[in-house]
């Protein structure tokens, strides 16, 4: 860790904040952290930095020596987060004085607002761009509920949990008899959540819903990139594809195969490894496939919940424009028109929803429907009709028939819950099934319908590349396939320097690539490279 980095982190430390009042709400559904608000919250990262700045640093040495903690986690998490992970600068990038893009957005969004309006003091921005100190609140949000620190952004506790109990217990609990590590490690995920407030991010469903709440949006939590924000200059959110994001983000976590403690546990007690850590041998199940399946369904669920929430705001309310396919409207008018020549699914002239949210789930559901489990088949087979109901309702009127779309979106969100529950227990993504899933993704990637939507192509390409090449030593071909995608995720893992790559710094290149996407060229090259 550089001296500069240490200073940045040290400055970020502000101690423990205690927010009074506990709001308990109904669970938002499977896969999301429970909504209980901890009595005592701690959000700064200084405590984390002390031990997670490298296995050989003074703060970590005794854990490495006494507990072999470096075989359970990586112990360099804080360095990775600080130097490479854009979450660490999530707040800084919305400070107008520090980011030209923020200044531009400020200049647009301040019109018609009070004279002291600032985007870095707008709770609509802070819900995702700062560590939220009261994330379970459904009340109008207050400025003091957000950390708003330049060097914190979305910090450790923003994802792992604000609860001070786990933050102490995970290293301080005495070792249980016969073990050489804090007893906390082997508590069940449910206990860790319920009694300590640690979010179970090893569970793909919990993880995906947490990520999706910002990367797809969650109006119920005040987390939405609205059309107004986009119009002011917010970069487009790329399709959220869990394993691809995991691979392209700077990983401060390890896959089970990389962590000796988990690898060993898988061998000695596979059941416990699965129940406590969602860890399986890659020979038994592809973690990428599970992340892909769960992540895609979680994204779809987040999108459906977002739709329903926006329409639920008032009678006859429409979804925010940002829920629809941006490029259905946002294109120059040119003759010949590829859209007019291709025809329309419903009435022409009605903006469709974002296509990408359903393409991979469609593949995942169809694959599951082909498995032998009867109850799983029944659930999985319901996808097509439910998505069709959503799209029909969305096209029944411009921006959707509010009543029908609300019902259809809620119905599909419930289906997502049912399906996530079903694949939790009824599906094992064995290497053979993973290969089938990859083949199906490859076929969909070059499907005529998919090729009309560059975001869908990007999503499927990421999904396919992640899946088909997981564990294979053919990185060059995998990278060549990823290079075909109309959207490129920055490889922050390999980035040099001690500052994360921000979206603003790569935006022009990203959009130019997107603009220049040629479906026919993609199809030709994809078929050759994938060999499908």
């Amino acid at each position, binding site marked *: 860790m550089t001296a500069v980095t240490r200073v940045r982190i040290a400055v970020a430390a502000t101690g423990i904040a205690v927010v009074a009042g506990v709001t308990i709400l109904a669970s938002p559904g499977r896969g999301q952290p429970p909504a209980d608000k901890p009595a005592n919250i701690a959000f700064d990262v200084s405590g984390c930095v002390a031990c997670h700045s490298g296995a050989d640093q003074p703060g970590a040495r005794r854990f490495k020596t006494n507990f072999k903690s470096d075989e359970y986690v990586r112990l360099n998490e804080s360095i990775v987060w600080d130097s490479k992970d854009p979450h660490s600068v999530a707040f800084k990038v919305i400070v107008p004085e520090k980011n030209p893009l923020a200044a*531009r957005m400020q*200049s*647009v*969004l301040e*019109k*018609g607002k009070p004279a002291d309006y600032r985007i870095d003091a707008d709770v609509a921005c802070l819900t995702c761009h700062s560590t939220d100190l009261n994330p379970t609140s459904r009340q109008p949000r207050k400025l003091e509920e957000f950390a708003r620190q330049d060097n914190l952004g979305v910090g450790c506790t923003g994802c792992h949990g604000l609860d001070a109990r786990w933050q102490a217990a995970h290293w301080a609990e005495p070792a249980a008899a016969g073990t050489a590590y804090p007893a906390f490690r082997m508590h069940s995920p449910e206990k860790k959540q319920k009694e300590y407030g640690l979010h179970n991010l090893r569970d793909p469903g919990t993880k995906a819903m947490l990520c999706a709440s910002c990367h797809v949006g969650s109006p119920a939590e005040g987390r939405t990139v*609205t*059309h*107004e*924000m*986009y*119009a*002011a200059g917010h970069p487009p959110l790329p399709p959220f594809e869990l394993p691809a994001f995991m691979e392209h983000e700077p990983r401060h976590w390890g896959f089970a195969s990389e962590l000796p403690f988990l690898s060993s546990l898988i061998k000695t007690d596979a059941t416990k490894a699965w129940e406590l850590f969602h860890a399986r041998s890659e020979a038994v199940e592809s973690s990428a496939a599970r992340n892909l399946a769960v992540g895609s369904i979680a994204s779809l669920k987040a999108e459906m919940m977002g739709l329903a929430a926006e329409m639920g705001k*008032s009678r*006859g*309310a*429409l979804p925010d*424009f940002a829920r629809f396919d*941006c490029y259905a*409207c*946002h*294109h*120059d*008018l*040119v*003759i*010949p*028109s590829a*859209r*007019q*020549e291709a*025809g*329309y699914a419903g*009435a*022409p*002239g*009605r903006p469709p929803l974002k296509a990408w949210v359903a393409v991979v789930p469609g593949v995942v559901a169809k694959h599951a429907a082909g498995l032998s489990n009867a109850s799983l088949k029944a659930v999985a087979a319901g996808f097509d009709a439910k998505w069709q109901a959503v799209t029909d309702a969305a096209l029944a*009127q*411009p*921006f959707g028939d509010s009543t029908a779309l609300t019902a259809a979106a809620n119905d599909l969100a419930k289906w997502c819950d049912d399906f996530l529950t079903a694949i939790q227990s009824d599906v094992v993504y064995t290497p053979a099934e993973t290969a089938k899933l990859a083949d199906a993704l490859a076929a969909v990637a070059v499907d005529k319908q998919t090729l009309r939507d560059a975001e869908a192509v990007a999503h499927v390409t990421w999904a396919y590349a992640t899946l088909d090449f997981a564990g294979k030593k053919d990185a060059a071909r995998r990278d060549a396939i990823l290079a075909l995608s109309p959207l490129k995720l920055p490889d922050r893992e390999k980035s040099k320097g001690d500052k994360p790559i921000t979206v603003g710094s790569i935006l*022009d290149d990203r*959009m*130019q690539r*997107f*603009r220049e996407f040629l479906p026919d060229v993609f199809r030709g090259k994809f078929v050759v490279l994938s060999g499908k």
Partner: protein
Amino acid sequence: MKRRILAGLFIPVVCWVAVQAATPNPNGSAETRPSVADLAKPFGLLGPNAGVYSAATNCSASNCHGNDRPGSKGGEYTTWAGDDPHHKAYAVLFNDVSVRMMANLKRGPAHEDPQCLQCHAVNEEKHYHGEIVPGRALGEGVSCDACHGPSQAWLGEHFREGWKQLTDREKFEKYQFQPTKDLVARSLMCARCHVGARDREVNHDVIAAGHPRLAFEAARFHFTDNYPKHWTERLPNPGFEMRLWEIGQVAALRQVIDLLAARAERATAKQAPWPELSESSCFACHQDVTGSKNRTVYGERNGRAPGRAGWQVWYTSLIVPKLLPAFDRVKDLRVLMAHDVIDPGVAAEAARKAVGELDAWLAGVQQRGYQTSISPGFAAEYRMILTQSALTDDKRKLRDTDWDFLAQHALALAAVAHALGDASAEWRPLVEKLQAALAFPPDANGKHFNSPIDYDAKTVLELFQALDAKLRARGEQ
């Protein structure tokens, strides 16, 4: 002067009818004197079932309107049958664009579709409005009666002694003869198809299927290079064109708001799409957003929230103070239509009120007449108002970067320049540059552009600023 701006918009029009309108015949019984309420409405606006229509062959005798000298008096039919695009309106229903449109709309052939025929032919023979009646002369396209009124009642009268002694109102109310010399009636009549009306419209579904957008501006349409006129204007310029521009603005606005009322009424009954996207500014949404055009640096949004498309920017941009009345009910409607969610019933009521306000103005123009002599000072004031309307009060930015707003201002200045002829030589080059800056790109690589893809807000701002500076230098402020 070349008036090439928006050439892409002046193209054959396919129209449709969503629902047959049930409005009563506005002229009522031929013997009835106009009521007070009628006087608050302009006359000359034909509704459906207005009378019995005849084929153009009734007009084409060589000693009537069909001599062999196109462009001459007596050669009206010949001129029309030559290169008048109205004559070709039916034929375009068979072309590839029309075929694809109807496939996209999942409807039958365009040339059999009553909704298309409403504007692409005279589809009103024998009162069988909207139905396919054997024997109609559909192939004539938009022929004489479409603009001059259903001729059965006046065909045998209009050449007789005494016809010229009738007033325009009498000709219309007694014989359904469309008073085309009256600029109010003419503008309203053109706008029925070129803007839309209760019984005919081009909505966003139809546009998305492939129909060109409609963007009517009366003065430009009158002086388009490829439109051979078969008549001579009574009024000389500059009076004619400037008054036509002014009346045309209000008439088009009246028609588009009446269309909004009709759409909203139908939407209330779940018989039409709502919101109707063609009510919004096309290029607010239809622009490539993958590259930053940075237009906000050079212009504002005319009060709109970010991410919101303006309502009917094309037709409302020039309802500016000093130039035309304030039209308070139109202003109320604009406020309403800026909301995120609009109840169609509320919109319909507000629109009807606005139509009443505009009708009263148009009727007043018909009753009072209008001054036709345009002094240099009056024309200069027009230019000043138009130029300043395009700029913010401090003149450092465009008031609105919406292309429709800017193009309407450019067209208005072009109308003044064209009307003044040589008297505008000093500043006309700036207007021409403005038109060029806003023009759609020329065809390239087999593509025809229907968007102002590369319009540069900075250039447009500088040209308006230069026009303003030139006026100031001449003391016209």
